[in-house]
């Protein structure tokens, strides 16, 4: 198999691309997801807060 | 205490008898899955003989998953479960009764059916015997572990698939020791250790799962 031969000839590339690149990619995706979730949650909480403020203003008026 | 246990078991058995189709579908599913395997892997007897125990065990595991959803859901929907939680006896005892009844209507028929299916795979008599003993010890454990999952997924959408997802990994030890026993006897080794490990799992499950399931039911009823 060609992959087998390539693997034996370029072991370090195989290790880097196969394992470390994938692991780093997983980490990057996770970090991106966490940041994204933080953004969405913050936006949602702000919206809720504004909605609450409006209701209170109307109640006062 | 025992009176209550008997009451719950009798009640669930009567209910199951009046809804016989449910038991039959599980059993037919079991027979079908087992019969499909030779069609999938080919009819060489040597290979089938070697696979038999594994196939039967995996099929039993899958069919017991199929019937688990019904364990609490009917009682949950018509309010009987609420009344059971208000019973002045321990909920664990009630749960144990329901588990026992569930095993009698869904596990026991599989155990009785297994030797017939084993013959389809040309299993030797000795191996068949150990298979049945293993199933007798193992299927109650499947019902009991499954009950935890059934209680946790009570009333959820897509509960059936979720239930299998939660319970199947927890059932792996039963599968390993059950099939291991049959392989050991086929290889002419002692089966004592496998069967005693299965027995130990059964005892562990008997001690802990009713209580855990009762807690899960309380969580799900909130």
């Amino acid at each position, binding site marked *: 198999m060609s992959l087998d031969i390539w693997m034996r000839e370029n072991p370090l590339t195989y290790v880097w691309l196969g394992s470390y690149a994938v692991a780093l990619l997983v980490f990057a995706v996770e970090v991106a997801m966490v940041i994204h979730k933080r953004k969405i949650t913050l936006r949602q909480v702000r919206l809720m807060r504004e909605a609450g403020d409006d209701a209170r203003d109307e109640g006062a008026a | 205490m025992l009176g*209550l246990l008997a*009451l*719950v078991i009798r*009640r669930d058995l*009567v*209910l199951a008898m*009046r*809804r016989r189709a449910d038991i039959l579908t599980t059993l037919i599913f079991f027979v079908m899955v087992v019969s499909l395997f030779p069609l999938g892997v080919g009819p060489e007897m040597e290979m089938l003989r070697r696979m038999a125990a594994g196939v039967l065990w995996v099929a039993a595991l899958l069919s017991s998953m199929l019937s688990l959803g019904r364990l609490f859901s*009917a009682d949950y*929907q*018509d*309010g*009987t479960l*609420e*009344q*059971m*939680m*208000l*019973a*002045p*006896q*321990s909920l664990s005892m*009630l749960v144990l009764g329901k588990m026992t009844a569930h095993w009698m209507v869904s596990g026991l028929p599989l155990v009785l059916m297994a030797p017939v299916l084993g013959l389809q795979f040309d299993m030797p008599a000795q191996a068949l015997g150990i298979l049945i003993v293993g199933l007798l010890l193992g299927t109650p454990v499947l019902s009991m572990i499954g009950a935890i999952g059934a209680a946790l997924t009570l009333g959820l959408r897509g509960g059936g698939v979720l239930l299998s997802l939660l319970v199947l990994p927890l059932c792996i030890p039963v599968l390993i020791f059950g099939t291991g026993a049959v392989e050991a006897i086929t290889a002419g080794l002692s089966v004592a250790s496998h069967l005693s490990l299965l027995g130990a799992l059964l005892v562990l499950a008997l001690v802990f799962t009713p209580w855990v399931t009762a807690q899960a039911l309380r969580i799900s*009823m*909130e």
Partner: protein
Amino acid sequence: MLEVSNLACSRGDHRLFSGLGFALHPGQIMQVQGANGSGKTSLLRTLCGFLTPDEGEITWCGKSIRELDEEYYAEMLYLGHLNAIKDELSALENLRISAGLSGVELDEKEAMNALRRMGLRRRERLPTKVLSQGQRRRVALARLLVSDAKLWILDEPLTALDVGAVALIQELVAEHLARHGMVIFTTHQPLEVAGAEMRSLLLS
């Protein structure tokens, strides 16, 4: 005696009620009132111990119902929205099993008598799936007749019942109060009990 102090309950984010307190003594009856969604059912379910309150305590004869657990359950009876009867079983079987679960051994004759008093004569042995909504409710309510619980918690006991059955329930409640029982209930229909002062609790 049932005592509730400083009780607070919420459903999800929504606070249903807080600072709720009352005491129910033998021979007393209390109606829980409030609009839809005001937490009537949640209050009754909290009294049953299904829901854990956010704050506050519920005591029975001076002890927390959490600690009493089974002792408390032996002295109370709950009837919810759901009838808790099985379609496949007959009225007779349903009643005997539900009595058995609440720790009362019931022989066939007692069960028959209770069902007859509920107006189910000649339907005792039919599977409940052939009965009407009102008749099924009657099967569920027959538990009131055979229970020796002191505290009755009834959630909408009168739904699907005709005038005759409502009168019968009023009679049963009056008998229960005369025996120094306690009743706490919700209803959207008027329920009048002779010879007892009706207390009411308003949830807003």
